[in-house]
């Protein structure tokens, strides 16, 4: 026990706190609701993972049309880091932290790990065929983002307008597939643009 200068004072202090603590009626906490929220949250994260896989799968299917066989390895390359980013409310997908990615223009067909330094996903052993890493275009204007994506060998997909957040109007707040994903050349990338 630490040196209590004066045990009486200590006792008075304890009593004061104890007494003070008894003033308010302790509120009721809704435990079942918390359990529900925790469960939903888990499901949401899981759902995010599934959505990412599905999105990637869709990208792959289109990619197959465009580029030929070899989709399976790509699907295996879903980076775990991409999962939370694709959660539902989309508070600015957190793709790669490196900011602006230098989109390495000019086809960049076989050498996938160009734009982003994310390690694990570059790996998938036999996926050395035509995949590219989606560059990060967050914060760029839409025309610029389109230019970067096409230069990286991707195509421009749907446009989704999002609002909220603190980004200026008209800039890219995310893509699907998210930046850092390895996808087949020609994959359409959905653009999410802030509308203020």
């Amino acid at each position, binding site marked *: 026990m630490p040196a209590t*200068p004066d045990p009486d004072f*200590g006792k008075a202090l304890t009593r004061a706190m104890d007494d003070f*603590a008894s003033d308010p009626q302790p509120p009721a906490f809704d435990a079942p609701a*918390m359990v529900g929220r925790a469960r939903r949250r888990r499901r949401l994260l899981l759902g995010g993972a599934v959505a990412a896989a599905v999105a990637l799968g869709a990208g792959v299917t289109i990619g197959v049309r465009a580029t030929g066989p070899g989709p399976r390895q790509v699907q295996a390359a879903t980076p775990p880091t991409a999962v939370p980013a694709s959660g539902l409310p989309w508070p600015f997908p957190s793709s790669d932290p490196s900011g602006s990615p230098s989109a390495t223009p000019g086809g960049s067909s076989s050498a996938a790990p160009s734009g982003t330094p994310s390690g694990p996903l570059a790996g998938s052993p036999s996926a050395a065929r035509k995949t590219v890493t989606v560059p990060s275009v967050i914060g760029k204007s839409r025309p610029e983002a389109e230019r970067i994506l096409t230069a990286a060998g991707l195509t421009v997909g749907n446009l989704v307008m999002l609002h909220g957040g603190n980004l200026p109007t008209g800039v890219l707040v995310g893509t699907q597939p998210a930046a850092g994903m390895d996808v087949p050349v020609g994959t359409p990338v959905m653009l999410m643009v802030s509308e203020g």
Partner: protein
Amino acid sequence: VGSWQRAERPDFVEFVQQRSAALFRTAYVLTGHQQVAEDLVQEALEKACRRWRRVAAADSPEAYVRRILVNLANDRWRRAGRAAERFEVPERADPHDSYRQVELRDGLVRALHGLPIGMRTVVVLHYLHDQGPEEIAGTLGISASSVRSQLSRGVAKLRATSTDLPQLEGA
């Protein structure tokens, strides 16, 4: 304020029923503010719920959640900066207390809430929860010697504030 011992893995809902009041007391003494205390407990319980398996496997789930709680409080205070350091202790007259006791108690409690959050936490864990420096050190992730020095400085400050209060011995 007994610790919560059980043989079986406790159920979260049951835990909340049985222990949330004690956690709320801690939070209330620590913050001096009912709504803030409630929010803190709510947040701590939500966190605990998300990792309940781990919490339930702990020697004392209550101590585990209390650790979450006091660290949340400390984080929040530090983030809010010194401006938010002090919550006003609401005026109250407790009919069960004699006037003098209320005064003494409120003086001490007010002085307590004037301490920096880290020091305050140390004092609360020691005097309200009877925790020793090692245990407190483990809870807050600081050294035991730092706990000791904060404790003695904290008590000295509280003492200094309470010298002008009517006789201490009576309490």
